[in-house]
């Protein structure tokens, strides 16, 4: 996800310091992957250069006396981004599909490949389900997004398992 747009969005409710932006970002979007300060300031520098944010300096001592504010151009840019749908991922280059075909080609048990993958997918799904059950609404939504994607993989896996004989006849 674009860190730049997240920062612009966080600035829409009012000007903020860099460290404050980092803290808000980590809290809302970090999910175990916190931003580095360097990343925050390089992003802010880029936004500044493009005229999407501006700086309000505060009098006094200290390393972080700069407050950043979103500009009108920044708000327009943000609106444009929100209004543009994300390109759906087609996932056409599936390693799993390649593994299944290669297992069939080399006379190995392709069902074993699929079974092993199911176990691994379910292991991760259990972990996410536990995290979701113990978590707040943000955790639930984020984990659900991942869970629905993993579930889609598993549905493909079951369908492929049911078509292995057909696929084997075509591959060999």
């Amino acid at each position: 996800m674009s860190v730049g747009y997240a920062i612009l969005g966080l600035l829409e409710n009012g000007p903020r310091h860099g460290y404050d932006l980092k803290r808000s970002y980590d809290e809302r979007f970090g999910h175990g992957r916190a931003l580095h300060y360097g990343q925050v300031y390089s992003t802010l520098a880029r936004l500044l250069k493009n005229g999407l944010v501006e700086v309000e300096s505060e009098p006094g001592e200290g390393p972080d006396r700069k407050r950043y504010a979103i500009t009108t151009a920044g708000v327009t840019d943000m609106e444009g981004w929100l209004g543009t749908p994300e390109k759906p991922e087609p996932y056409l280059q599936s390693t799993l599909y390649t593994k299944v075909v290669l297992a069939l080609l080399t006379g190995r048990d392709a069902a074993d490949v699929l079974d092993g993958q199911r176990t691994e997918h379910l292991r991760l799904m259990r972990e996410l389900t536990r995290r979701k059950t113990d978590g707040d609404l943000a955790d639930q939504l984020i984990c659900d997004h991942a869970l629905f994607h993993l579930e889609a993989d598993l549905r493909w896996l079951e369908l492929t398992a049911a078509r292995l004989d057909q696929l084997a006849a075509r591959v060999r």
Partner: protein
Amino acid sequence: MQPLLTAEDVTYSFGPTHALDSASLRVYAGEVLALMGPSGSGKSTLLHCLAGILTPDSGQVTFDGRDITAMSDTARSALRRTDFGFVFQFGQLVPELSCLENVALPLRLAGVGRREAQRRSAEWLERLEVADVAGKRPGQASGGQGQRVAVARALVTRPRVIFADEPTGALDSLNGERVMQLFIAAARDTGAAVVLVTHEARVAAYSDREAVVRDGRVREQEYAR
């Protein structure tokens, strides 16, 4: 550790169709086991054999050291009443009784007095967050509420195994999630094992391990605890 419930080489046919072909499975005390597999793979038939509802053509089902395939119908019914609980896709509540009376029913059949049965049932309805439907008939409750009543009914006798066949199959995602969370948390609290038949991975993710049924045979993930 000894399993609580086992199927050994169980075979079952519906006429010329082999639903189970030498299926074996172990269920350990207190675990949540997901039985997965495509439609028609035999997973529900296996659940019915494990629960003593169907008698296998051959093979053995053992619960707590007792061969239930060799039991009389009466003994098996008694076992189902005292040690097993059931949750099906469509609640299967008695439409003429209130939700509270539905939950109390298995206790009443086990000889518990009316007042005590209703007291315990009310606690379970509370636990499953459906205390407000206690006096209503199942037809007046929503699908999600009905399934929670069905879960309360399955748990009220404190069974050692709960058999759940697509318990959220008729619910939308949000209601299904809530039913699973409450159901599994309550089952874990009572120490009951759960055999959960589902074709949905997100439901199976509430389990501790899975077994996959395909063409009447079982591929079981190792028990690791």
